[in-house]
């Protein structure tokens, strides 16, 4: 059963509009995988659709799971108002997360904006690998949880579009510079805006590095029933519409047809 009524045990405001919630969910914490998401009912009103939010951290020992979200519209605004002790109605863990192969020794994770969050749980899966994290934000003020990522990474590059901190430029530029240095990773994991993902996928192809990307699409059911969350992917004979909520959100970059 993937429907859970979980209690909010911690609520932190990280920024003017970004929140981290931690919920108690023993069964979920035991089996959720990095890259999967929660489909959250933000309102008492059944006419509001659920909102998909990635898993940020999985703490199986303490039966906890946390997620970080930005207030964008009505649903996330309602979510942000929830208090510790409140119960959240979620469907989880949903979707196909990152494919985690033990033989990756040198991994790169690249995240942009609110797309950085699912990458943390992923990094935790590789205690022994050499991990390079490249995160991109609009400006230093928008950097979220940079310290948390830096701590868990062997190499950490923070990019800002306006150069207010770290690398002045976007994550693709930073990644390109890294790759040009000659040391190529076994895998690139990326999550962020489509334009960024497309650029990362292109670099991965160019340098011949396997790459997984986590896509976003508007969702209704979240479980593969309504078919609204289509994305174009390659098949042997041509292309098909896969579904981000079920076949994804994580896809192999070479399978995605960017439009």
């Amino acid at each position, binding site marked *: 059963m993937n429907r859970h009524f979980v209690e909010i045990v911690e609520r932190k405001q990280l920024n003017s509009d970004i929140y981290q919630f931690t919920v108690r969910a023993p069964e979920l914490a035991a089996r959720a995988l990095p890259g999967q998401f929660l489909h959250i009912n933000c309102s008492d009103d059944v006419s509001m659709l*659920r909102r998909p939010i990635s898993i940020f951290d999985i703490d199986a020992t303490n039966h906890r799971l946390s997620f970080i979200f930005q207030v964008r519209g009505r649903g996330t605004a309602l979510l942000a108002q929830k208090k510790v002790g409140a119960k959240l109605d979620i*469907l989880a863990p949903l979707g196909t997360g990152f494919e985690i192969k033990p033989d990756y020794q040198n991994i790169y994770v690249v995240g942009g904006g609110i797309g950085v969050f699912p990458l943390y749980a992923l990094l935790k899966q590789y205690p022994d690998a050499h991990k390079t994290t490249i995160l991109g934000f609009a400006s230093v003020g928008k950097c979220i949880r940079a310290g948390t990522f830096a701590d868990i990474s062997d190499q950490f590059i923070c990019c800002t579009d306006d150069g207010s901190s770290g690398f002045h430029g976007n994550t693709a530029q930073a990644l390109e510079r890294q790759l040009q240095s000659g040391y190529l990773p076994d895998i690139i994991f990326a999550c962020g805006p489509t334009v960024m993902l497309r650029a990362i996928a292109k670099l991965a192809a160019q340098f011949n590095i396997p790459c997984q990307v986590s896509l976003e699409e508007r969702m209704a059911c979240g*479980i593969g029933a309504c078919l*609204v*969350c289509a994305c174009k992917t390659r098949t042997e004979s041509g292309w098909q*519409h896969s579904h981000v909520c079920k076949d994804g959100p994580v896809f192999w970059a070479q399978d995605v047809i960017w*439009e």
Partner: protein
Amino acid sequence: MDLRVTIGNLKLNNPVIAASGCFGFGREYGEYVDLNKLGGISVKGLTIEPRQGNAAPRCAETPSGMLNSVGLQNPGVDYFIKHEIPFLRQYDTKIIANIAGNSIDDYCRMATILNNADIDAIELNVSCPNVKAGCMAFGSTPDGISEVVAAVRSCTAKTLIVKLTPNVRDIKETALAAEKNGADAVSLINTLLGMAIDIDKKRPLLANNYGGLSGAAVKPVALRMVHEVASCVNIPVIGMGGISCWQDAIEFLLAGASAVMVGTANFTNPTVTAEIAVGIAAYMEKNDFRQIADIHKAFSVNN
């Protein structure tokens, strides 16, 4: 108390059916709700060949509703028969095959194929607003309905439900045309054609520009249409459009529906169908109704 309902040869354990396109092929919701608790499942709209549907975005939330422009993505009728029917047959619920086509010939070929398949009814989708050719074009006029219904009727002995579009001036006309040409029942409403615009991008939010509006927002329109149609046809009416709780379902049953379908509400509440069945039973108990039909018998209009 008896929740059973008969529609043509379709015998439902209770009047709650999952609406087409909102419940996949049942299996997607199987782990959230006991499929045995549903009267029936109308599966995702099938076409003769597999279809990929429209480009994304295909969905936009609107006040108390949503727009979709899936455009009938489905694996085709043959795949359905081979891979989905066996799964669904494990459950004590009825299988309704929702079919859509670009031409009369498409509809007839599917009806012929499905006539020999292990399904309980065919729902003729002549009301999908999200495909360019056919479908809603047939369903928008009494003549179009007459032609396609008569043709399909001659291809199948299965219970034939004709699904009506609300995008018409007078839905009684299309309902009567369906009845006259051999439909065993009508189901309504499909989605209302709508639009949403992204004011930053200055483009329609849906890649397909227009999409079908469903969800609670459309309930008043759906209920009115169900009442109009139930008041003029002699075949059973399956009501839908915005049903989100048992009270909504009761409104449709009072208005004259013999059964209800539930679509969009599943997305937020995956157990809503089973909850509605329970709520209907409790309402009947409280009101001392013994049959589903008693609900409508207790209804009267203001004068």
